[in-house]
């Protein structure tokens, strides 16, 4: 995966027309712990896996409130993410001060993308090493965007970024068609389930994940641990009830999921010819 000659500088093109430094920045996003987002017509839910450096330390904050109607989940270099969310907060405050109305999400995302693009075209800068899932609500409805270090942004119905996110993406791909009309609680359950997919075997506890919701009549806020644990308990109970009968199925199901995940990764590496930024 190392392309040596043309990757020293962010301002050096490769003969194939790629900027390797930017692509390396996107690799940094894949190293961070998972973050997922999904939206319905009226609500958007963000979730992330809490990773702590050691047992002694607290986990890093990966979900930030930007304004009452916008929140962001990050994966990658958390420091870059913290700085970018401070920028986003300032933009929201300034827009609100001038226009006395909330900043439309689409605008904010474009400003973010432009800021990221600048870093890909200056020899004295480096690209931001963080991917942002921006969840927001504005006049045109609920939105979920993904901002790349490359300066691209995409709107998603549901998405997952970070390490082991492929499992979550598979789960979301299966279920996303139902999301538009989901109720808020179903959406949160789907988010927690998607996070569980990324854990791949670890027990799902409220201490290991953080969930945040924004929706119509509901300003952006992070759900407290008690609420999350309750929701986890409700579907642990449901799982137990189907447990004995479904266990052999579940076991084989997990195996196939892992296989699919591995296959997807290999598929990704053979796709090297296609530059990731071309999506």
């Amino acid at each position, binding site marked *: 995966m190392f392309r040596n000659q043309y990757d020293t500088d962010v301002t050096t093109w490769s003969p194939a027309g790629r900027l390797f430094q930017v692509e390396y920045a996107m690799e940094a996003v894949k190293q961070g712990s998972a973050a997922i987002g999904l939206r319905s017509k009226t609500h958007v839910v963000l979730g992330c896996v809490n990773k702590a450096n050691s047992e002694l330390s607290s986990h890093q904050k990966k979900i930030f*409130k930007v304004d009452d109607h916008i929140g962001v989940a990050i994966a990658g270099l958390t420091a870059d993410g913290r700085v970018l969310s*401070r920028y986003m*907060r*300032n933009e929201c*405050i300034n827009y*609100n*001060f001038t226009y006395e109305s909330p900043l439309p999400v689409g605008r904010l995302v474009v400003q973010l993308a432009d800021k990221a693009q600048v870093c890909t075209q200056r020899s004295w800068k480096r690209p931001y090493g963080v991917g942002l899932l921006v969840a927001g609500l504005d006049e045109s409805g609920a939105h979920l965007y993904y901002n790349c270090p490359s300066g691209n942004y995409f709107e998603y119905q549901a998405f997952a970024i970070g390490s082991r996110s492929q499992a979550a993406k598979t789960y979301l791909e299966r279920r996303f068609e139902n999301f538009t009309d989901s109720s808020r609680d179903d959406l949160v359950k789907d988010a927690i389930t998607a996070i569980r997919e990324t854990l791949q075997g670890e027990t799902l506890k409220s201490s290991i994940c953080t969930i945040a919701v924004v929706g119509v009549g509901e300003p952006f806020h992070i759900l407290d641990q008690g609420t999350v644990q309750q929701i986890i308990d409700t579907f642990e109970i449901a799982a137990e009830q189907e447990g004995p009968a479904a266990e052999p199925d579940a076991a084989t199901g997990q195996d196939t999921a892992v296989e699919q995940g591995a296959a997807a990764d290999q598929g990704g590496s053979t796709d090297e010819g296609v530059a990731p930024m071309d999506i």
Partner: protein
Amino acid sequence: MEQQIKSQNRSCTEAILARYGKAPFFFFFLLRKLKIQICGIKSFASQIAVLIFLLGRPLVLITMPKQQANWSPYDNNGGSCVAIAGADYCVIAADTRMSTGYNILTRDYSKICKLANKCVMASSGFQADVKALQKHLAARHLIYQHQHNKQMSCPAMAQLLSNTLYYKRFFPYYSFNVLGGLDNEGKGCVFTYDAVGSYEKVGYSSQGSGSTLIMPFLDNQLKSPSPLLLPVQDAVTPLAEAEAVDLVKTVFASASERDIYTGDKLEIVVINADGINREYMDLRKD
């Protein structure tokens, strides 16, 4: 009609007299004395006109009286504000009349703004500046919340307001503020300001056009004995919440009688442990 038309054709002399006063004529007589004639012109008013044309601005500076700016960036929209601190509550009140000069702009304008959970500000003066100040403080409060994950306390907001006002020391916010709320222990506190940010924690205060009428009455009712007298008494009033609200209503009713800028409606905001409560009372509309 003929007379009107005549009066429009001012002679040269009248024109110069009207614009520059008598000074150019004295200057001209001096020249005449010294036997200096300008440009061979016979009529002396025309000579002055030529002189003015030639010398223009410097002559103006010598002969014209200094003119002051006749446009002010400020206006006073009137009104009065009052705040009283109690043991576990705070009452902030202001009238809702907005005026300019001797006219009323509206009878229904709120001078009270909630800055934080337990912190409310009432301001009288130039309402455009007041509005800008409120927006500024709201934005700063949002930043504080993002950084500290909690609301600003009333003493913290008091210091922020003081700094914000002094920042514009040389083009001030024409805003006379009174800040009221609960401090970190839940006790009522009132801070009173001047236009450039000098502030003090007090037990009660009033600002605005009616403050000269209101303040002595509050002093009479609420002023605690000197802090030099032992046992030391608290600045906050021992009155109950309902009594304090009644006092405020009385005070505004009296102020409306004599202050023309105070009246229409009274807005009373009470902050206590349960939250913020708002009530209204009618005042004289004249």
